[in-house]
């Protein structure tokens, strides 16, 4: 077990010392760590937008690592989108959270707080961190009343610090997944990383203002719902299982299940399943390897017409127009 203490920041001052803490070096926008700790890409980007820095992490840990995030500068907040496979636990002074894919995969954390992670060897860590200076958020709040009046939703009012653990929407999931397919480095990647950053922030704001940011849910129930989400995502090539089947899997009554599922994901189970299905369909069509009929069959839509109807409703464009224009 290695213990590492490091710092982030909303400027570029932390990068050298970060590389040093991880026994590595920087090269261009890449940060390399010692291979004993992790292999893969860590890529930072100064967005050109003032006071915002993006960090892209796609690494595999080669050893058990205990990470302590203790920031030198206390003037920023971190917005973390995390699709790590296999949960890692994150501890603040009061609580321990399971973070990672389908767990608490979105978090907003004040740089004042010291956070600890336990990461097991072999963990595939993937995520995007957005560091924003507090002054920027203050300015934004001054210009936008709705945000200002809702800001306590992402704050611990007693301690006057930002902290919120949350769940990702399917849109975010798609954004992160698409980005992961790209080759890291180069202008095209930079553009896409910036675009992803903007879209993630926009989506987060949307959900925050529309009250979709969830309240605390009983931990066991949450885990059950997460498991169901996993089942649904892994079964996008099958028709939607009935609510009864999946409610049984989550050990809940149908009514409770439906209510809770909606509270956590912001959509019905069927819609959730369909969204992932359609995103997959788009991906398949984009590769041009399959025809529309083949995609519809492969994803087990009940009929060709239904597939086209749903595709059109979700993306606003029919699959035929979409592939013709590719």
């Amino acid at each position, binding site marked *: 077990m290695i213990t590492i203490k490091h710092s982030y920041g909303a400027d570029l001052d932390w990068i050298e010392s970060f590389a040093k803490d991880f026994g590595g070096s920087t090269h261009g926008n890449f940060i390399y760590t010692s291979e004993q700790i992790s292999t893969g890409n860590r890529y930072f980007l100064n967005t050109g937008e003032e006071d915002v820095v993006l960090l892209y992490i796609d690494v595999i840990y080669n050893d058990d690592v205990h990470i302590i995030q203790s920031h030198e500068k206390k003037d920023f907040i971190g917005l973390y989108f995390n699709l790590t496979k296999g949960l890692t636990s994150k501890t603040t002074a009061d609580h321990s959270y399971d973070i990672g894919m389908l767990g608490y995969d979105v978090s907003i954390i004040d740089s004042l707080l010291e956070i600890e992670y336990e990461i097991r060897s072999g963990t595939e860590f993937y995520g995007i961190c957005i560091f924003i200076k507090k002054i920027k958020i203050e300015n934004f709040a001054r210009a936008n009343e709705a945000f200002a009046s809702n800001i306590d939703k992402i704050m611990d009012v007693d301690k006057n610090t930002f902290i919120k653990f949350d769940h990702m929407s399917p849109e975010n999931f798609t954004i992160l997944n698409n980005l992961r397919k790209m080759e890291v480095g180069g202008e095209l990647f930079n553009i896409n990383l910036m675009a992803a950053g903007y879209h993630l922030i*926009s989506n987060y704001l949307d959900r925050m203002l529309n009250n979709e940011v969830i309240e605390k849910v009983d931990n066991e129930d949450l885990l059950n719902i997460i498991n169901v989400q996993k089942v649904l995502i892994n079964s996008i090539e099958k028709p939607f299982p009935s609510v009864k089947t999946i409610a049984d899997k989550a050990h809940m009554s149908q009514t409770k299940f439906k209510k809770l599922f909606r509270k956590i994901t912001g959509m019905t189970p069927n819609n959730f399943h369909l969204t992932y299905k359609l995103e997959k369909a788009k991906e398949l069509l984009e590769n041009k390897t399959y025809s529309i009929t083949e995609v519809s069959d492969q994803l087990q839509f009940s009929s060709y017409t239904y597939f086209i109807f749903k595709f059109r409703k979700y993306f606003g*464009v029919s699959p035929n127009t979409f*592939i013709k224009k590719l």
Partner: protein
Amino acid sequence: MSSEKLFFGLAPEYQFQFAEDIGGVLIKNKIIKIPQNLGTGHVFYIRSIPGMAILLWDCNLEKELNIKAYKDNIKRYIFHYDLSDQPNSLLIRNKKVAIGNSINYGLTILNNQTETFFQPVIKQRTFALRFYIDHKLMQIFADNDKNVMQKLKKAKNNFFRDDIDGNSLLLLVSLYEKSIYDESFDSFIKGTGLQLMSCFLKKNSEQSLSPNKLPEFDHKGLLASKEYLENHLQEQFPSITFLSKVAGMSGTKFKMLFKKVFHNTAHDFFIREKMNLAHKMLQSGDYDSLEEIIYELHFNKIKQFFNKYFQIFKKDPSDDFIKNNKK
């Protein structure tokens, strides 16, 4: 009556003048509401990353407007995405050009050094997104890709118009659904602008243009038919009907795809391969006479073989023939 209204482009200050000109209200320094006597809708303006700005038109005009975007000191490209219901027109150097997704010219690239007028169609929804981008920044993005540079050169000299690609279309359609008054809209449109840029680069870069991707099933079929030909070189050419059955598609589709993928018709491909085999056989020294080879390759006439051989290798088969001396 069409009246001339100015709209410069990048710097936010020009919004005031435009708003004043048309008598609209400027909200939060980014939204201009179109006054009722002109129509409904709004124009949205925001600065994205340094060197890039975005302008969104979403309106339904009652009166004709002639919107002029004219020269300013910094050279910029203007990317104009048009998703309006009816084609709009652009006046470039006194020439009228129709643009719009409905006529498959969704994307137009202009430069800000030429005087251009944008004339939205009246009594129809106009939905157009423009981004202004500095030459310097574009240079970095283009990364010296020949194809992209070529397209940009066209835009530099005059203008360039193209169809919108599927992914850009999805991005723009998703903008339809958003309200510009949402607080999350700013960063959403900034992200969308960058993604559109990325789509443009991806579509036009050299890499993406080279391979012609086929559905997997068709590709497999074509390979199977090609393999069949290669394994049966010593026989006569099987018919197209037969080969298309091997490939699992109709005769017409087969002929078309074969040519597209292997840059040759199936028959020509077959003859060429056959001649390569003949060449090998001639030089192998395993045969006593030319006739023996010709017979084995299933040619009807000696003359036919000679002709084809000459066509490909520019010499007679007898020149290449090495007689069997082993006996």
